[in-house]
């Protein structure tokens, strides 16, 4: 099967010290992959690099064989919940509609069709009833589901999610997992930054163990071994000395 994402020799540096070092990664199309690693391992950075939000020091990333800019509309992004101001004066539906801004193009406003699409996405995450609520009145789990709905409405082929399961309630966790499975059954490729090692094997079928370098990646059954985990976490955290 063709690869959805191909990362070659990716190195990312902040202020000259590397955060990601020489990453090679193939994400097969249709994979449901967890990105796992300790704090500061570069998980978020990897997602951001794939999305071209940061400029790598070296290496290249291809999505369906093309650079990000030309396939941006087929990539959906779920950022960390804490990355925005939830007191912003806007409603749940409005936030979901933002997922369509890329497709709408300049100047055009979202109309009835877009609203219908957004409502459908909200329904999928069980939030349709709260569509007109102000976003500050949502619980953490509900906020996360709004972000998911915003990505769903993009109708992408690849989804990149940054810790969607971090600090959410049980209902939200169930909803999100079901959603991930649905996406997978629709042939979408999903990469999820994940913190809870206990649930990796039950939620995902592929895993990337990351700690600045790629420790291992592949099917959970093959790669998610104690030896690899020890290499990733194991008290002795692998780092690259800053290039000073």
């Amino acid at each position: 099967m063709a690869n959805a994402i191909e990362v070659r020799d990716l190195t990312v540096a902040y202020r000259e010290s590397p955060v990601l070092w020489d990453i090679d990664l193939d994400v097969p199309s249709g994979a449901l992959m967890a990105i796992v690693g300790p704090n500061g391992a570069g998980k978020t950075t990897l997602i951001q690099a794939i999305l071209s939000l940061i400029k790598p020091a070296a290496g290249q990333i291809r999505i369906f064989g093309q650079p990000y800019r030309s396939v941006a509309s087929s990539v959906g992004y779920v950022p960390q919940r804490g990355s925005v101001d939830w007191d912003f004066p806007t409603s749940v539906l409005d936030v979901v509609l933002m997922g369509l801004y890329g497709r709408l193009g300049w100047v055009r406003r979202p109309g009835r069709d877009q609203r219908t699409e957004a409502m459908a996405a909200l329904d999928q995450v069980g939030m349709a009833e709260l569509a007109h609520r102000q976003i500050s009145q949502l619980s953490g789990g509900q906020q996360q589901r709004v972000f998911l709905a915003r990505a769903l409405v993009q109708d992408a082929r690849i989804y990149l999610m940054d810790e969607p399961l971090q600090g959410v309630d049980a209902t939200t966790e169930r909803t999100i997992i079901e959603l991930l499975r649905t996406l997978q059954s629709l042939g979408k490729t999903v990469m999820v930054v994940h913190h809870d090692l206990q649930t990796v094997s039950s939620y995902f079928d592929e895993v990337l163990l990351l700690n600045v370098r790629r420790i291992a990646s592949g099917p959970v059954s093959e790669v998610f071994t104690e030896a690899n985990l020890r290499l990733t976490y194991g008290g002795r955290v692998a780092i690259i000395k800053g290039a000073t």
Partner: protein
Amino acid sequence: MEQFLGDYTFRTVALGTAILGAISGALGAFAVLRRQSLLGDAVSHAALPGIGLAFIITGSKAPLILMVGAGLAGWLATVVVLVITTTTRIKFDGALGFVLSVFFGIGLVLLTFIQKFPDAGQAGLDSFLFGQAAALVEQDVITIAVLGGLALAVLVLFWKEFKLLSFDPEFANSLVLPVRRLDLGLTTLLVVAIVIGLQTVGVVLMSAMIIAPAAAARQWTDNLGIMVLISMVIGALSGVGGALLSTSMSNLPTGPTIVLCASGVVLVSVIIAPRRGLVWEQIRRTLQARRLRSEAILLDLFELARKHDSYEHPHMEAALKVMHPNASTLRRQLRSLHSKGLISVHSTGGWALTEEGMNTCKGLLDKRVR
């Protein structure tokens, strides 16, 4: 008052201040939401040397020329702040304070320098410090309206992009929107909004016209579009109100008067705005405390009832008093529970749960377990 409204000069002034108040209200809403309130302060202070230089270079006091100078200087200030914060470890606040005061200082030096010009045409420039509404003439109002109208038009045209930029710039970036250019555009609009108010409100206090209407408007709504509209109305009303007061009384500088009007609106909004306001919050808190207290009494009765065979067994107020030593409002709470039909009073004067009260208690306990 009526004599003012009929007066042509005053109508010109009122129109000018209303327009500039509305524009700064609209752009201010975005500045406040993007946590750039104090950037407005820096831009307005930093505009002073631009005004001075524009006059020195051209020798003209035409509003458009001075505004262009002010705008360039204000814009330069934001660039310098950006350079300092991105290239050194000096933080935003330090860079802002530095740029604001140094630009302003240089502006003052230029003004004292201009004062020595032989034709002494600087009298008009002095009014840029604290503003002078009375000096607004038709030409100024036209300039304000055209520039402000353009800024508003751009804001409306790119409304959804600016909204996304303000809420979640990273997501905007993932949609390959040109985030940096949008950011630059919105900041430029802010500079325009500030610059058109300088002649009337003055460089020192113009920043308040950016912050105050927006901060007040935020209290009244949870919708960005409505917030911008309310902010424009508040800005316009403060502008007209301040200009009216300052032209009707002697020795009342326009800028400070307008700013006090706008600040008053903020204070009122923070106190009385429905749902968010302080009064509202206080009422909500009182109601919740009362509800919790009566729930506690209800659960005590439930506890007592469990020790007896039947929930109908009455309990004296004194017994409840022991369980709530500092409940001074015990009787009132009991009466309120009684009127809701949750408890009943017995001929002995004791209280007992009704069946409905029983069910309520079970519901409450269920919720707590969960």
